[in-house]
């Protein structure tokens, strides 16, 4: 894989922005004029070169000294390209962490070596697990403030182990570091001889998180139908979309959903180029050997039959500042279906202190994570989120305000 998409999470003051600033600065991804601006700004504030200013983009953030929205950063090493979603740690902005994690392969979770695992760590780990991130790198930061002692690091690793199981994280790595000083971020530290592992950057360069959707059965949610209606392409009828799972080749049989009708793929196009195959992640146009009723949110599938149910069990993360009350209706949006839906049942709500799902009162507030039963007016074509992230994810939209109120993962 030549690109790694990752996200960062931490509490306020864990030094997350400094860590990212350090990663960019030490990997020589900062331009001279950006650095000049940060130096001038640091000077005005009477501080030394403050690397966190490299990523804290918005004016209010600079004033309050906290990150309040997702900021995307790009850097590359000779080995790999990185897309980083820097998300806020502050409690009311959990929705942004969910946003950042939804497109990421891996997450960095920052822990202050002095404080160890705290409530925010639990919340972030759960979100990472919930959103199906394949790998998590726990950055035990501020080692300089605990005199680079090993027990502080070991304690975090042990405490995190219980969390790892509860959150369902498949792959976890630990790195002791100091973002402020630069130990073990890009350059190895001489101050922690007891740590033999890789630096954070070299770990990120070698991480190979497995995406189950790439190896799963073919799924192709249709975005739109292409009909040129020109003399040259008089009868052309192509289906545009991005492969959400598996792979397809010319001559393969597929089934069109919701109709359940079989057809054969007789054309795959990328622009004017004709392809033999299309794989996970590719945006293409597919033509079929016969006339079938295909429209936006139709799904072409091969192999196992996709899930076709109007009643869906899902995990839901409530994102909106307005709470959910029983009986409210929403618009369900997923690649394989769009239409009215309601939350038939809020079965259980996650208690972040005990990490257990408990009975709720039927309402849902900002940042709450719950197990729900969703009832859709028409059955969408979906998959279990753990098998295919794209086919298994959905959002709920407030039909009046248009706000994205919740993100869901089908079980």
């Amino acid at each position, binding site marked *: 894989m030549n690109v790694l998409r990752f996200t960062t999470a931490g509490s306020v003051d864990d030094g997350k922005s400094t860590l990212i600033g350090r990663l960019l600065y030490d990997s020589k991804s900062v331009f001279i004029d950006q650095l000049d601006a940060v130096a001038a700004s640091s000077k005005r504030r009477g501080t030394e070169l403050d690397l966190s200013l490299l990523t804290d983009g918005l004016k209010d953030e600079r004033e309050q000294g906290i990150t309040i929205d997702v900021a995307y950063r790009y850097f590359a090493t000779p080995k790999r390209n990185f897309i980083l979603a820097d998300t806020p740690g502050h409690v009311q902005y959990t929705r942004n962490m969910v946003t950042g994690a939804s497109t990421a392969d891996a997450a960095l979770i920052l822990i202050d070596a002095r404080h160890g695992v705290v409530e925010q760590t639990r919340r972030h780990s759960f979100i990472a697990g919930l959103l199906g991130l394949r790998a998590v790198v726990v950055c035990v930061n501020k080692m300089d403030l605990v005199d680079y002692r090993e027990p502080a690091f070991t304690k975090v690793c042990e405490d995190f182990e219980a969390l790892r199981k509860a959150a369902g994280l498949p792959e976890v790595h630990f790195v002791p570091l100091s973002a402020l000083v630069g130990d073990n971020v890009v350059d190895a530290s001489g101050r922690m001889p007891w740590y033999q592992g890789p630096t954070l950057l070299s770990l990120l360069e070698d991480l190979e998180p497995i995406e189950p959707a790439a190896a799963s059965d073919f799924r192709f949610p249709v975005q739109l139908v292409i009909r040129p209606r020109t003399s040259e392409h008089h009868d052309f009828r192509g289906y545009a979309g991005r492969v959400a799972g598996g792979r397809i080749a010319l001559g393969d049989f597929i089934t069109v959903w919701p109709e359940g009708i079989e057809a054969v793929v007789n054309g795959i196009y990328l622009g004017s180029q004709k392809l033999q195959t299309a794989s996970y992640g590719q945006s293409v146009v597919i033509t079929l050997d016969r006339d079938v009723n295909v429209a936006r949110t139709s799904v072409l599938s091969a192999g196992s039959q996709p899930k076709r149910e109007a009643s869906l069990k899902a995990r839901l993360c409530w994102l909106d500042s307005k709470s959910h009350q029983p009986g409210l209706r929403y618009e369900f949006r997923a690649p394989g279906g769009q239409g009215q839906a309601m939350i038939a049942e809020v079965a259980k709500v996650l208690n972040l202190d005990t990490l257990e799902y408990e009975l709720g009162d039927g309402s849902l507030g900002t940042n709450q994570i719950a197990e729900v039963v969703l009832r859709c007016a028409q059955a969408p074509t979906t998959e279990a989120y753990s098998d295919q992230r794209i086919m298994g*994810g959905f959002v709920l939209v407030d039909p009046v305000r248009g706000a994205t109120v919740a993100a869901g993962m089908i079980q």
Partner: protein
Amino acid sequence: MKEQPSFLDELEAEAIFVIREAYAQFERPTILFSGGKDSIVVSHLAQKAFAPAGIPFALVHVDTGHNFAETLEFRDRYVKQIGAELIVGSVQDSINRGTAQEEQGPLGNRNRIQSVTLLETIDRERIDCLMGGGRRDEEKARAKERFFSHRDAFGQWDPKNQRPELWNLFNGAKQPGEHFRVFPISNWTEMNVWHYIRQEGIELPSLYFAAPRQVIWRNGSWLPVSDFISLRAGEVPITKTIRFRTLGDITITGGIESDADTLDSVIAEVETLRQTERGNREDDKRSESSMEERKKQGYF
């Protein structure tokens, strides 16, 4: 056939997906076309997204009246070539109508009042979606943009109240009078754009390539001499071999000294440049948060 898709292939697939979503979700989606390389790349991707059908978007150009002649020539030739409709919003018309006021003083330029013309054009043409070549790596405030960026009836961006964007589910729901800005190449860097231009053989305006040009030295960069700027005391026009890294209003777009007169040499130069490309744009230097302020007011 390449078995392992390259990073550029992945960025292209993502951008095509976003462009198709914009088409599917809006009634009057358009491309904001400046004649710069980023909007040219977006137009190229839009052609690719709908082939073999034609490009289904009009191109919108906000004309400050202070143009590089090459930009207008390129624009007119390009829309003809790709068979797209062209919509022009004129800043001069807004000034004549009195809806926009020219900035006074020696630092005055038409960059800020472009927003007025843009919003008037959106209104007049009932545009509900403008796709642009904005990239998150360009500037700190842009790093926080969504792919689908909601604008209220005043064209304002509310950075603290952005809709969360999960997976590839983009929410274009809006109230009457509101619109969206859509950024298909959000995740591209300047380097990616250049590599893609080479890979696809995309034609660019000649301003991107080094040539002898009449310039003056102002505010740390080489500003092209044109009918639209007045020389200040001590400024002497000279001929320098320069090229432009971004194209905007001719009165504020500074060039850099360069010998890079081919695509390969430009790419080699960009790879070694350690200044961000907006560094030569006078409008961004006014204050630490100038881009954010302009975006809140409806700037692209």
